[in-house]
């Protein structure tokens, strides 16, 4: 099988995000960048499927992002992916979801695929749209927010558990398809030392928009950020104290009922 895993470079979850002094974006200094958490589940699931499918199955990582993303692509290769395509182009500095989807769909088509795994959303812009737009552009089914994945014996269908409010749906899909991954799907492996050594020799094919056949951006920007807004300041915590714990708990109950009026 030909398996693609999408990967995005995003700020670490522990990163403190502050608006820059111009109010045009976030302060970049001191931010550590990592593989988008949900994309790690996608890479892991791709590797597991390769093992199950056997034969000449192959996992290709597909990344769109700045040059600095290369080291994260290399990490995915060290986890065990076979090779990678890295789309990087100055014109793609701040793409809108339609542009990203069109570019990634073209790159995926050029590679050929039986299935595409990706994260359910990137934890920077939190849009969670690209993969579903890609699915429409590629005219294939999508199953989003996967917490379980099984391939059929003939490798032509997959059964996916998808998280919804109050439970999971069990979805059966034909392939090719796009499956977006949720926490709980698997436990991503760490790159081993031999894996890291091997990854140095694996191929990362850099591609520009022109390499993918785009003369210009596939769409104008469809949206504009009007402004960045910081979080409201915390109003301060009222510490509930008393000589005895029981009295403090009683006071808390009183506050919840009489002051906050929620119980």
């Amino acid at each position: 099988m030909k398996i693609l895993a999408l990967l995005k470079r995003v700020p670490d979850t522990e990163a403190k995000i502050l608006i820059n002094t111009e109010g045009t974006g976030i302060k970049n200094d001191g931010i550590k960048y990592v593989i988008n958490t949900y994309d790690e589940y996608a890479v892991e699931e791709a590797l597991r499927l390769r093992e199950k499918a056997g034969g000449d199955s192959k996992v290709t990582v597909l990344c769109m992002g700045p040059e600095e993303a290369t080291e994260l692509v290399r990490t995915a290769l060290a986890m065990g992916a076979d090779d990678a395509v890295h789309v990087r182009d100055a014109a793609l500095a701040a793409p809108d979801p339609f542009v990203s989807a069109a570019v990634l769909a073209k790159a995926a088509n050029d590679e050929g695929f039986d299935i595409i795994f990706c994260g359910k959303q990137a934890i920077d812009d939190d849009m969670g749209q690209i993969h579903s737009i890609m699915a429409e552009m590629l005219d294939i089914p999508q199953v989003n927010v996967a917490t379980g994945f099984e391939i059929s014996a003939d490798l032509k269908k997959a059964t996916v558990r998808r998280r919804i409010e109050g439970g999971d749906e069990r979805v059966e899909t034909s392939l090719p398809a796009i499956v977006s991954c949720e926490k709980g799907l698997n436990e991503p492996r760490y790159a081993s030392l031999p894996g890291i050594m091997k990854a140095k020799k694996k191929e990362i094919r850099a591609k520009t928009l022109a390499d993918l056949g785009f003369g210009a951006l596939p769409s104008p920007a469809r949206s504009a950020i009007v402004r960045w807004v910081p979080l409201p300041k915390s109003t301060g915590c009222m510490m509930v104290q008393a000589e005895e714990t029981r009295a403090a708990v009683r006071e808390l109950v009183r506050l919840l009922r009489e002051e906050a009026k929620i119980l």
Partner: protein
Amino acid sequence: MANDILVFGELRGGGMKKITKELIAAARRISQATGGAIDAVLIGQGAGSAAAGLADFGLRKIYVLEDEILGTYSTEGYAKALAGVVKETGPSFVLLGATAMGRDLGPRVTAKVDGVMFSDCVDVRMEAGRCVARRPVYSGKVYIEIARTDDRPNLIALRPNNIPPAEPTGGATPIEKRASSVTREAIRAIVKELIPLEGGRPDITEADVIVSGGRAMKDKANFKVLEELADLLGAAVGASRAAVDSGFASAAIQVGQTGKIVNPKLYIACGISGAIQHLAGMRTSKVIVAINKDPNAPIFERATYGIVGDLFEIVPMLTEELKKVL
């Protein structure tokens, strides 16, 4: 028509989800400033009877699509049906819930109608003639306000519990039944079964009250202490990433940047230190109670009320005291 608004009314098990009335409230804000008419569309089993419940909300028209093939949700079937209504009626704005269904459906419809979509919005308003949506980015560490740049259809997915639901205004909106052109062959990903969450408690993304445990829970079995309080309050049980990664709780109930973003009326954080990625997931809760041994835990900076102490002493006491008064 320019400035018209289409509300996607989400059905679950044949009943209308409460987000629908919140969407109507948001639609009225746009309509009041632009004069655009508000329509609604309901798709699936029970759409007809659910539509009757919206007839006195002052809408222009309610479209109902109840074909057998649309009985239960499928991405491809619903996307085709909804995109069809958007193309035929030509609204400027399409409002839908930032729910499991809305998140799955919205981008696919956006692609079909060549539109633009804003995901996970918490507010919508008109500002100098344009519709501006507020949405958290970096999982709620900061907000952006965003607007479309041209006239293409603008899908806006609103998170539940952010805009007060609309009230009926009287009148009787005509209900128009439509047939979709969706065929069985068009649906390649099919929902075969719904597997309910263990425990039968409300989902953390929909609950009014959440009782959540962190690393200090020490063990899976200890969550029983939180469950007793939760069941008294009709609450959901949540967990921090530390608790999930330590194997104390299922990833399905994780609150935070790599879990669920929640917005309850009351959030009770038990033994949760308040890592930045956890705060990102629950800081919009109306009232936050923090129970922690460490008086310097960052959770107290975001909490409304705090008690310093051992959760295994305080939580059962809280359950007892609440039992006396509720």
